[in-house]
């Protein structure tokens, strides 16, 4: 058995990714159940120090209090793990210089983002403002993306078989961007202030989100096709995963529409209309809506992993291209730096 020294930064980063995923689920549920204002004060919870709020009152209390206070506790936990990760990364960074600076940069970004996100969460409650809620909802996945990037870069393969800006790395980067834009558009739709939004604005948001879905789907399939050949096994795996996830996501998205805004009757053939009206606030409905949000963030995370596996953050000149591509029709392939 080969002895390998324990990769502590990677372990802590993975822990961070896991904890953040749970935190995001809670955050998504808070929005689904409109529970954000279940606790009117911040950083205290009903006057108690957040950490000293009676456990039983929280755990067995009303569902929306459970969600909101739980979200706060998890947020604090994630903040602490982030700080621990920063400490560990400073003590034990990757050896390779460019990777080291990248990972350190990302860790600094993570610390800044987690602090910002906590403050945004507080502001959302204190100001009871939907705009802040939207920004809070867009910063969460950004933090998650950074956490995934740190975990991927500190992993055994690091940037693995990155070959520089190949077609697959570009597609992956586009996919990453599109996945994030989708989360931004989705957050606008979810935190719609129904009392003040102009229907035209709403229609624009819907158009962006639907068009974005088509774009993400196209890019996901393009990535899967591009990564078939020469890419690293990691890239192949991630690209296939993302294509599958995106298909589920579209189905969930249609379901989420039906559950939250009603089945657009008249669009479906009459025979397909359910004979019973949908029940508002059903657990199944909440699961569909929340699942759509969480899966969106998962797709973003996988897109980060894919982008890294296809060469994002590849070291400066230290990584050698696996194989220069053969010239096409006699023309020499464009040389990349």
């Amino acid at each position, binding site marked *: 058995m080969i002895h390998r020294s324990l990769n502590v930064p990677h372990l802590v980063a993975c822990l961070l990714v896991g904890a953040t995923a749970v935190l995001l689920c809670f955050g998504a549920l808070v929005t689904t159940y409109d529970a954000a204002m279940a606790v009117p004060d911040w950083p205290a919870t009903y006057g108690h120090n957040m950490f000293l709020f009676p456990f039983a009152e929280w755990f067995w209390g*009303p569902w929306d209090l459970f969600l909101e206070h739980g979200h706060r506790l998890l947020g604090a936990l994630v903040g602490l793990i982030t700080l621990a990760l920063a400490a560990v990364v400073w003590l034990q960074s990757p050896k390779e210089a460019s990777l080291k600076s990248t990972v350190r940069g990302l860790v600094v970004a993570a610390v800044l983002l987690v602090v910002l996100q906590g403050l945004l969460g507080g502001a959302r409650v204190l100001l009871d403002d939907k705009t802040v809620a*939207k920004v809070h909802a867009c910063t969460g996945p950004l933090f998650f993306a950074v956490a995934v990037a740190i975990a991927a870069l500190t992993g055994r393969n690091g940037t693995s078989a990155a070959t520089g800006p190949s077609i697959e790395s570009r597609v992956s980067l586009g996919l990453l961007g599109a996945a994030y834009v989708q989360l931004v558009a989705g957050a606008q739709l979810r935190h719609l*202030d129904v009392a*003040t939004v102009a229907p035209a604005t709403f229609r624009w948001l819907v158009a962006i989100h639907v068009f974005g879905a088509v774009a993400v789907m196209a890019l996901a399939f393009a990535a899967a096709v591009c990564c078939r050949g020469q890419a690293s096994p990691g890239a192949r795996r991630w690209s296939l995963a993302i294509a599958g996830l995106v298909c589920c996501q579209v189905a969930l998205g249609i379901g989420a529409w039906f559950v939250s805004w009603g089945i657009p009757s008249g669009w479906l053939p009459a*025979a397909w209309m359910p004979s019973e*009206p949908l029940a508002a606030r059903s657990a199944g409905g909440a699961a569909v809506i929340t699942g759509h949000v969480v899966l969106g963030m998962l797709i973003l995370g996988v897109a980060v992993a894919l982008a890294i596996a296809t060469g994002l953050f590849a070291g400066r000149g230290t990584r050698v291209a696996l194989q220069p591509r053969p010239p096409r029709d006699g023309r020499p392939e464009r040389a*990349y730096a």
Partner: protein
Amino acid sequence: MIKARHNIVLLSATAWLLLVAVGCGPTPSASFRPNMVEATKQRLTVDQERQVATVLLAMFGTPDDPVALPETGLDESKLRLAAGPVRSDIVGRKNGLYREHCAHCHGVTGDALGPTAAFLNPYPRDYRPGVFKFKSTERADKPTHADLVRVLHNGIAGTSMPSFALLPEIQVDALAEYVKYLTIRGETELALMRAFFELDDDAGGKLPETREFLVYETLTPAAEKWRAAADAEIQVPEMPSDIDLVASIAKGKELFYGDKANCVKCHGVTGLGDGQANDYDDWNKAIVEVEKEVKSGAAKAREASTAGMSPDELAEHRAQLAWLEKFHGVLDGDALAPRTIPPRNLRHGIYRGGRRPLDLYYRIHAGINGAPMPAAKGTVPPEDIWHIVNYVRSLPYELDGELGADRPMVARDRF
């Protein structure tokens, strides 16, 4: 690669910019939307629109801070539970129920202009005219409180209106009360806007702001109808017991195709709802008619030659053109594209107003208020309505082979 790192910085920056562009600026506070279609139709001036808004504000408050004058008969504590932004109050009760559950379809004002409304067919109910479909009272009467609660509890099958059976009873009750509040507010607004038309010349184009006029003459009649509904339930006779179901269905069939009830005219000889299908309900018809008026008015105004007009006529002509133009804009922004209302396909067995025999009795007896479906009351004796109910209830189970096979020719010939 360095380039890739620049890319990601660029990407995040763009994402944040996008974020800021889409959603930023502090959230404005909620306000009721004026009924612009009616205001424009009544040719109200800006000052008059403002007066209506001020009066309504004093009488009904805002979406965040509702007021219920005693004359409305509404329970303000229930309204407070339903109104405002979504939050939990000091004892952990959820507030802001209407905005959480209803406003995206029905609009904060109850004008059915919520953001998602345009995607739905049928459109959500516009409460403002005070017309409701599924109730236990006569056609022109208001629904009872229990009727509203039942609609909320059951939802409306075959439409996007969901069931709120999973909400605690106290919340459903508060929501029903809030629907009444929005309705009375909308009815009062309509009455005020129409009252300008009847003003004396010496009123200076302003409504009298007296308690006498605003409360006793305008608000009270609207509220009174809601109170009267409680005692106006349709008296339903026992289902005739001296006749077996098969005979009752046969009798119902005869009535269904007969001249008096004439259900075939709309629901079709097959019962598939393929009879007269190009009609509108009251809400959409109002828009269709106004649209027609605006279009023909604009055509006429464009044709008219201004050459021989006196200055007075010219000014009037210009005012008319400006009004038409304004109306056009209002219809674009404050009305949804009209949709026709097809008669129900009675072979699906999906009944929007509920599937109990009693519900069908109410529907057939009183018709569907706001929809073309007429009342059989008056043309069909009450006991016989039960036969029609039984026949309608048997339609989804009739074999396909029987579709229209043995229909009396008289009915078919009428088209």
